[in-house]
């Protein structure tokens, strides 16, 4: 690959990523660009939102060494503005910040973007991590972490596993165009973050198969060893809130107690579904 091409790709993909499923770039161009980025090991721009100057600087050293392009912001109040300006491919977000706190920033980012968000947290108390995930963070990493762990988390979130050729998944009243990263429910577009898209696609490629949380952690989040299964639980809830008619009583992404999740058979929907469901 010629280095010139790489530079071009960096610019285009950086601007487009995270907005893909919303705006739907021309799919063939996008696919080619993404494949190119995988092949040449494209890293991308990372917005680091952290108030600790030493940690910020050290993160900068590590990220630059790994080929990422870090952008820093120290205060929560400036985070959203910095995001608009830098258009990062990924946000590293400290939960405890002066000014606007991490949870609030997370929620605001999710209102306008599906950009991958990895929380940096010094807290290990259950409720804080769950709150962060519920606010829209894709993954988290607990301080202190090693450079290797950090880079692995970031890579996992930036990685795209693209399938060869066009793939369209149909199940229940949903249709997924995997290449275009587009999802429709009863022909109406549904906004999913890249992570939610990948989670749904993973389940939908093998309908009726039950995926354990561990398998999903490996396939969707890229954890090679045991990860935190709460990641799966929280994101399944978020996904259901977007695609289910009644998230409290899900028909599409079903819980298989004691095992995991699956895309349920449509027969179940037909049997117990509401009469007006098809008319919808």
């Amino acid at each position, binding site marked *: 690959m010629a280095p010139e091409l790489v530079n071009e790709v960096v610019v285009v993909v950086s601007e487009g990523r995270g907005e893909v499923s919303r705006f739907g770039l021309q799919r063939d161009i996008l696919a080619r660009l993404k494949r190119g980025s995988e092949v040449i090991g494209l890293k991308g721009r990372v917005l680091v939102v952290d108030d*600790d100057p*030493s*940690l910020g600087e*050290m*993160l900068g*050293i*590590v990220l630059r*060494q790994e080929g990422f392009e870090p952008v820093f912001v120290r205060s929560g109040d400036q985070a959203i503005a910095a995001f608009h300006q830098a258009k990062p491919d990924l946000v590293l977000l400290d939960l*405890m910040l002066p000014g606007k706190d991490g949870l609030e920033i997370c929620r605001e980012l999710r209102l306008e973007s599906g950009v991958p968000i990895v929380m*940096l947290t*010094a*807290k*290990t*108390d*259950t409720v804080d991590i769950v709150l962060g995930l519920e606010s829209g963070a894709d993954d988290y990493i*607990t*301080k*202190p*972490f*090693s*450079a*290797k762990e*950090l880079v692995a988390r970031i890579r996992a979130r930036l990685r795209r596993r693209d399938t060869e050729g066009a793939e369209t998944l149909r199940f229940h009243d949903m249709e997924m165009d995997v290449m275009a990263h587009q999802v429709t429910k009863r022909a109406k577009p549904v906004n999913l973050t890249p992570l939610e898209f990948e989670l749904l696609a993973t389940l939908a490629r*093998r309908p*009726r*198969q*039950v995926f354990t949380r561990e398998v999903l952690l490996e396939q969707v989040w890229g954890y090679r060893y045991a990860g935190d299964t709460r990641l799966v639980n929280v994101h399944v809830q978020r996904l259901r809130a977007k695609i289910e008619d009644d998230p*409290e*009583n*899900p028909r599409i992404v*079903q*819980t*298989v*107690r*004691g*095992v995991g999740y*699956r895309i*349920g*058979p449509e*027969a*179940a929907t037909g049997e117990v579904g509401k009469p007006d469901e098809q008319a919808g």
Partner: protein
Amino acid sequence: MLGRFAPSRLDLRARVVLFTSLIVVASLLLLGTALHALLAKSLFTQQLDQANAEVERLRDQAAATLNGSADISTTQARQRVFDQLSSGTSAPKPGFTAIILVGPENTQRSDDRFTLESIPPQLINAVFTRSEIAYVYMDAPPGSESRRTLVVGAPIRSPQGDYEAYFFYPMRFQEQTLGMLTNFLVIVGVGLLAAVVIMTAISIGRVLKPIQRARDVAEAIASGNLTARLPEATTQDDFGRLAESFNRMTEALAQKIGELENVSSLQARFVSDVSHELRTPLATVRMAADYIHAARSGLPPDAQRAAVLLERELERFENLLEDLLEISRFDAGVIALDPVEVDLAALLDEVVDALDAIAHGRRVRVTLHVDRSQGPPLVAADPRRLDRVFSNLVKNAIEHTHDGHVKVGVARRGTDVIVSVEDEGEGIPAEDLPHIFERFYRADVHRARTLGGTGLGLAIALENVNLHKGSVTVTSEVARGSAFTVVLPAMEPPGKPATDDDAGPAPSGSEPEVVVGG
């Protein structure tokens, strides 16, 4: 009635009333008996005195009559005496109602119901043999006017022959009088008892009312309502003062509890703050150390070694910090268990698997034996905490064994699941055994810390097991090995509800028990 209830099971009021009633009944019985006895005695004495006097007089008259009838036949004389004596029965105020006259030839009686045979022999003996006036009380024959009767016998001695006369005095008057007295005592007694019961119940109720109020308030406080207070005292008696001091005590209690809660939340907050404040610089240090470690080939030899030591000790420091924070969280009581169903066989399999490399390096064989004969080893638990507990125990076992065998077993036993970890290590001396779950206790201070424990592992394991309402025990024999046993309450396996049959087997094929739910 009384025997069926243990006194302590009755409430206070019933007990006091019962006790008072018993005292009243006992006193009435005593009083009644005494009164009855006293009156009976005086009545009987009076009758006896009168009877004696009358009998004496009659005997003298009869003796005189006999003395003056030397000219007539014995039969006539006897008839005369009999008539004379029996005329007393029809006198205006008859003492006796019947007589029997025993003569030298014949016996004559005024009333067929009273026969000589019915008279007790000792009386006859006294009168006949000893020739004296004597008396006896006996049951009256059926149909008489009284139940008991007084019999007075008198010997009549004369030249015309020896006679004995027996006079029957019925005890109607005495019996009636005593009967009336008894009735009177019973009526008065029952009335008195009723009055006492009612009065006691009322007054005990009044006395108890403030105590019951105090009890209600105390119960309210005990169930967590620290603002409950007794109403302000209106009197300066004992109850008034009780209310006052009770309220003062509650006030002090509420204050102390408030302080303690404050301290507890402060500690929890402190732990959380320390955690955050330490972790951020540590994250920087960690990454810097990683960076230097990765780039150490370009450094002078001593600096290279320093980079390695820095990296290694940082690892230990992090582990120690994690353990300290964990134990602080236990101390602050901020750890809540959010249990899910855990199959200990699967969990232990993973634990043993993960430690395989360490075991292999020390030439230790680790085996897992699962006994499902009494059911699956399921528990309601936080799998990460249990993973930590058993990783710690198995790692310890491996660390203490050289070239040997570590046996891990799990079995369902009744309502428990029992996990055992046995090693063939050097064992723990008996004097150390009670202390090994203490923080930073090291059984052997000289022992090489090859696996870099923090000294908090077993203490945290114990806290984690306690959190799951389980227990952990250890037995050990020096030079033979140690055995740790963890007992956790078992969880009943869920039933197997039918699945959607059109779902077909899952392609992975590993999950036959599928339950679809919301």
